[in-house]
């Protein structure tokens, strides 16, 4: 994909670039710490889960150039397993989240090794089809509760001492998980491994001729992305105390694409901004019912035709910095 990184940026001194990212990060953390005093904490927690989900998705599309149209599979199944293990087996929240995450990792390994066998547009169709298959499994399996989903999931005691029924404690835990995930993704992108991923995005054939086993890199990136999407889904199940078919169905896969696209593909902060924007929009537009679908579609079309860089991408381009 072209025009993801504008050329003038690369020529600027690197000190300024790191500063821009650090400043943006500090602003983000400060905003997330102050925000619960001004708006519903539950909304913010949900938004942080989706932000992590979108960041995980962005790791694939933004830095490897792979469009997965089935990320709801990892988000949703992690959500189911976290909810089920917490409710039926009485797992404490940390173990429940780990169970969900491990499920997503395994699903990511299987789906990823199938999907990377084809390139480009086929990759998107394969991931979508595999996600739809797992949606049907979720629909038919007994433990998922079918149309009702798994409701009233206990939040429980974190590490046996922290009561997550307390909104403040829950908020801090979600904030920590989100920031840890965010920094982990940042670390991946800026590691030698991340540089190879970007090389694959720019020119896979060239990367192969340089001796990189690109399939293996793509698979690792896919599993990482699925796992982090799993962390987000599992955390969401604990926060909202609910896992349902909505989380595994294809519109969810489309939603995470939309969040990332609105914020800016291949930007570090874009998915975070995008997911807050889209969730806020859904809350505000809830009364208009089905029109939300139409508005989402219009945003998709507008983003693709007019703002391919997304909010953060345009901002970074305008300020000539990297975000």
């Amino acid at each position: 994909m072209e025009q993801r990184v504008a050329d003038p940026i690369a020529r600027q001194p690197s000190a300024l670039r790191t500063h821009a990212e650090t400043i943006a990060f500090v602003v983000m953390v400060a905003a997330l710490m102050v925000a619960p005093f001004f708006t519903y904490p539950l909304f913010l927690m949900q938004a942080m889960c989706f932000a992590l989900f979108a960041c995980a998705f962005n790791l694939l599309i933004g830095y490897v150039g792979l469009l997965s149209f089935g990320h709801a599979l990892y988000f949703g199944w992690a959500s189911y397993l976290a909810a089920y293990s917490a409710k039926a087996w009485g797992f404490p929240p940390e173990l429940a989240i780990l169970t969900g995450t491990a499920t997503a990792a395994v699903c990511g390994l299987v789906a990823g090794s199938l999907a990377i066998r084809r390139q480009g547009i086929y990759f998107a169709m394969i991931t979508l089809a595999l996600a739809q298959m797992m949606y049907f499994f979720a629909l038919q399996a007994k433990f998922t509760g079918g149309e009702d989903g798994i409701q009233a999931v206990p939040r429980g005691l974190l590490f046996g001492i922290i009561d997550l029924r307390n909104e403040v404690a829950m908020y801090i835990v979600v904030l920590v998980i989100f920031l840890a995930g965010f920094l982990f993704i940042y670390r991946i992108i800026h590691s030698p491994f991340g540089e190879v991923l970007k090389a694959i995005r720019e020119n896979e054939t060239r990367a192969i001729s340089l001796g990189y086993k690109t399939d293996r890199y793509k698979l690792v990136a896919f599993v990482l992305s699925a796992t982090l999407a799993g962390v987000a889904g599992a955390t969401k199940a604990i926060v909202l105390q609910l896992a349902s078919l909505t989380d595994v169905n294809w519109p969810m896969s489309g939603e995470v694409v939309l969040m990332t696209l609105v914020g800016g593909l291949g930007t570090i902060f874009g998915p975070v901004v995008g997911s807050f924007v889209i969730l806020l929009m859904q809350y505000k537009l809830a009364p208009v019912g089905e029109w939300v679908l139409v508005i989402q579609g219009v945003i998709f079309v507008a983003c693709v035709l007019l703002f391919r860089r997304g909010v953060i991408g345009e901002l970074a381009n305008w300020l000539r910095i990297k975000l």
Partner: protein
Amino acid sequence: MFEIFGIPSTALFGQLLIGLINGSFYALLSLGLAVIFGMLNIINFSHGAQYMLGAFAAYLLLQYSGLGYWPALIVAPVLVGITGMIVERLMLQWLYKLDHLYGLLLTFGLALIIEGVARNYFGSAGLPYTVPESLRGGQNLGFMFLPNYRAWVIVASLTICFGTWFVIERTRLGANLRAATENPTLVRAFGINVPRMITLTYGFGVALAAFAGVMAAPVYNVSPQMGSELIIVVFAVVVIGGMGSILGAIITGFGLGVIEGLTKVFFPEASNTVIFVIMAIVLLVRPAGLFGRRT
């Protein structure tokens, strides 16, 4: 009545027939996707929504202008095809130089818009569309009862599929099309208006989807979400068959429809997922797809 593998033959042939019907739609839709992809290099995510539009166009034509099934079979695809051409001129044409993924994202957005609007005006419950007078009733074949309409769907779908194959592979127009896919600049140098050809191709592909939609209206209910789930299955069909070959798309479409129908008889729990499982197996054994060339 006799039994095959412990299954009553009527049930078996009944499901086989349903499989062939579903296969007709898979074939028509994957054919449209392949034609569009060949010329525009875009995966048309709104194909399912345009199929649904075809069915709704037939429904609305009947309700408000009294046009019955037969005229609708021509008028609805033309109308939907024209909207497709407008979309191509207004939006898609700006994406040809970009990564393929943007085409997928844009048409996904269009699908959301179309489905959302339909849901707003018609709710998510299905609307009935009756079988045309001339095709009611059926034939008793001795081993099963064959409703006329279903036989017509299979025959019409096969005719359209092979007609399209013939035009693209065996006529001068098709030769121009294929040449324009390979090297648009050279074909333009011969005085052929390639951009117009692209617009018409998209219009034709969309019209095929709408045609399938009209044919589907009496079989299934007309509902806003009839396209979105179908299109994902069709994507799997396309992955299995590969989009390189038109004949391949037709054979895969019908074949998978039949396999799905048989699964409904022998292992009903898996009937929703069998096509996806086959896709996974094909990816393991023949990553390029059954009729695809390795890219």
